C-alpha cells in the first residue's frame, strides 16, 4: 500500500473515531458535571442519554443558519471553520500507539510522524487564536469583540509558559518528534517507576507538567479560564452571534483542542502508550481487568436499577464490557490494542480532570488571569527550564 493510500485510510479512520469521540466527550462532560452536581444529566434520548449527541447534531444541523446584519460575512463564516480545521489538524501528528502490523502492513498508529511534530503542534496552537479572534471581530458585536480580544490575549499569554514547559520536557527527551519523545520514556527505574518525563531523572518535570496542564486549560478557554465566553458578562463571548453548525464548529474545536492538549500531556509527560508498570508485573492484564470491572459495575447497577429501564440497558453494557475484556485477553489483539488502551486511559483521565475542574473551580477575574500567567506561571516555568537545563548540562548521563 503506497503512502498516499495509507494516509487516506488512516485519516478516514482517525476522522471517524475523532468525530465520535468529540460528540461523546460532550455527553460525558454533561454527565460528569451532572453527577458532580447531583443531577442525572441527559438521560431522555436513548439509554442514559447515549443518543443525546446524535440528537444535538441533528438539531444543530437543521437549525436556521443565521447571519446577523453588519457582520463581515467572509470572516464571519471563515472563523468557525478555521477554528475547527486547525483543531483537527493537530491530530495529524499525535501518535496514539507504537508501530503495529495490521493486515500485513506495518504502520505507526499515527497519521504522520513529523520530525518537528512538536513544533507543528505549537504552530497549530498558536495559529488557532485566529478562529476565536476573527469570530469576535467579524461578528460586529461588542460582546463578541470583547470575548475575541480577551481570548486572543489570553491564548498568546498562556502559550509562553506552555512552550517553556514543553521545552523543559524536551531537554530530557532531546527530540522534537512526538513518537521519539514517547520512545525515550520507555523503561522503568528500579523496575517499577516508569521513566516518564514526569518522573524522569535527572530532573523530574512535575512542575512543568502542572504548568502545562494549567496552560492547556487556558488555551482551550476552559474553566476556570473561560473568560472569553463568560456568560454572565459577555452573554457568550466570541460566539454570541453564532448559531447552528457554525456554533457547533466552535464546540468541536474546543473539545478537539482539549483532547489534543491532554494527548500532548500524555505524550510529553506521561509516557504516551507505555503502561504504568512493567508487563512482568501484570500490566498486560490491566485492560482486561478494567473492562471486566466496568462490566461488573454496570451489571451491579443493572441489578439494582435506579430507573426501570436500567434493568435492561445496564446488563447490555456490562456484557459489552466483558466482551471487550475478553478481547483484551487475546494476545494478538492485546499486542495491537494495549498501547492504545494505555494512551486512551491516560488521556481520558486528564480529560476527566478537565471536566472535574470545570465542575469544581470558580472563574478567575481577567486581571487575575493575566497576572497569574505573567507573574507566576511564566517565571515558574522559566525557573524550571533553567534548572532543568543546568542539571541536564551537569549530569548528562543520568537518565
Amino acid at each position, binding site marked *: 500500500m503506497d503512502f498516499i493510500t495509507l494516509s487516506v485510510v488512516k485519516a478516514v479512520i482517525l476522522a471517524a473515531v475523532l468525530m465520535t469521540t468529540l460528540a461523546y466527550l460532550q455527553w460525558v462532560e454533561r454527565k460528569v458535571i451532572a453527577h458532580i452536581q447531583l443531577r442525572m444529566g441527559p438521560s431522555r434520548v436513548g439509554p442514559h442519554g447515549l443518543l443525546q449527541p446524535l440528537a444535538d447534531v441533528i438539531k444543530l444541523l437543521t437549525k436556521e443558519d443565521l447571519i446577523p446584519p453588519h457582520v*463581515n460575512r467572509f*470572516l464571519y463564516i471563515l472563523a468557525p471553520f478555521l477554528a475547527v480545521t486547525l483543531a483537527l489538524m493537530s491530530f495529524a501528528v499525535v501518535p496514539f500507539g507504537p508501530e503495529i502490523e495490521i493486515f500485513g502492513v506495518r504502520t505507526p498508529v499515527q497519521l504522520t510522524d*513529523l*520530525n*518537528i511534530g512538536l*513544533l*507543528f503542534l*505549537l*504552530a497549530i*496552537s*498558536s*495559529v488557532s*487564536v*485566529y478562529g476565536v*479572534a*476573527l469570530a*469576535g*471581530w467579524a461578528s460586529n458585536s461588542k460582546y463578541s*469583540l470583547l470575548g*475575541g*480580544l480577551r481570548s*486572543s*490575549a489570553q491564548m*498568546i499569554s498562556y*502559550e509562553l509558559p506552555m512552550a517553556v514547559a514543553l521545552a523543559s520536557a524536551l531537554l530530557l527527551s532531546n527530540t*522534537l518528534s512526538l513518537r521519539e519523545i514517547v520512545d525515550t520514556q520507555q523503561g522503568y527505574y528500579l523496575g517499577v517507576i516508569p521513566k516518564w518525563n514526569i518522573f524522569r531523572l535527572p530532573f523530574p518535570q512535575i512542575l512543568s507538567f502542572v504548568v502545562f496542564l494549567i496552560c492547556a486549560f487556558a488555551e482551550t478557554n476552559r474553566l476556570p479560564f473561560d473568560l472569553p465566553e463568560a456568560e454572565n458578562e459577555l452573554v457568550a463571548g466570541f460566539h454570541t452571534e453564532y448559531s447552528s453548525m457554525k456554533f457547533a464548529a466552535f464546540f468541536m474545536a474546543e473539545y478537539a483542542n482539549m483532547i489534543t492538549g491532554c494527548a500532548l500531556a500524555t505524550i510529553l509527560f506521561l509516557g504516551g502508550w507505555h503502561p504504568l508498570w512493567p508487563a512482568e508485573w501484570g500490566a498486560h492484564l490491566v485492560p482486561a481487568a478494567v473492562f471486566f470491572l466496568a462490566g461488573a459495575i454496570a451489571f451491579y447497577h443493572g441489578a439494582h436499577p435506579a430507573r426501570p429501564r436500567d434493568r435492561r440497558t445496564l446488563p447490555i453494557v456490562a456484557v459489552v464490557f466483558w466482551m471487550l475484556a475478553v478481547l483484551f485477553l487475546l494476545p494478538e489483539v492485546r499486542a495491537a490494542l494495549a498501547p492504545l488502551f494505555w494512551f486512551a486511559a491516560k488521556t481520558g483521565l486528564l480529560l476527566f480532570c478537565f471536566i472535574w475542574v470545570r465542575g469544581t473551580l470558580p472563574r478567575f477575574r481577567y486581571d487575575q488571569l493575566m497576572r497569574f500567567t505573567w507573574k507566576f506561571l511564566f517565571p515558574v516555568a522559566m525557573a524550571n527550564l533553567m534548572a532543568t537545563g543546568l542539571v541536564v548540562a551537569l549530569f548528562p548521563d543520568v537518565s
Partner: protein
Amino acid sequence: MDAILFFVFAVIAVACAANLVVQTHPIAGALSLIGVMGSLAVLYLLLGGEFIAAVQVIVYAGAIMVLFVFVIMLLNAGAERPVGRSVVARYLGVPVLVIFLGLLSYVIQSMLPASEAVRFGGFDGGAPAEVGRLLFTRYLLPFEVTSVLILVAILGAVVLGRKEL
C-alpha cells in the same frame, strides 16, 4: 510534486501579497499576510527548512500577526478613505510594476542561468538540531544580542503602552 507544491503556494503567496496591497481594510491585509506567511512556511519546508518553517508559523503567524490583528481589533481600525490619486499613478502604476517585476525576473534568471532544481529533501541542514547547533556555536553572540534586543523591545513596548507617556 515539488513543482506543483511550489506553484500552488507561490501563487497563494503572490495572490495574498497582492491582496495586501489592494485591500483597504487592515484586517483583510493582515489575513492576506498570514496567508503569505503560511505559504512561505510551506516553501521553507520544500527548501529543507523544517525548523524555520515551524518558527515562521509560530512566531510570524502565531505571535506577530496575532499582535497585528489584536491591535487592529483594539483600535477598531476601519478601511482607508479613498483619496484622489493622480491619474498617472492609478493607470500607470500597475503596468510599471509588472514591467519592473518582469525585468527583475529576467535579471535574476540571467544571473543564475544554471541554478539547480529544488527538490524536497535536497538539503537537510535545516533540521532543528543543526540550526540549534549553529545558533549556540558560531552565532552565539548574535543570538545573545537578539535576546537583549527582545528584552529592550519588551521594555520599550511596556513603556510606550502606558497610559501617559
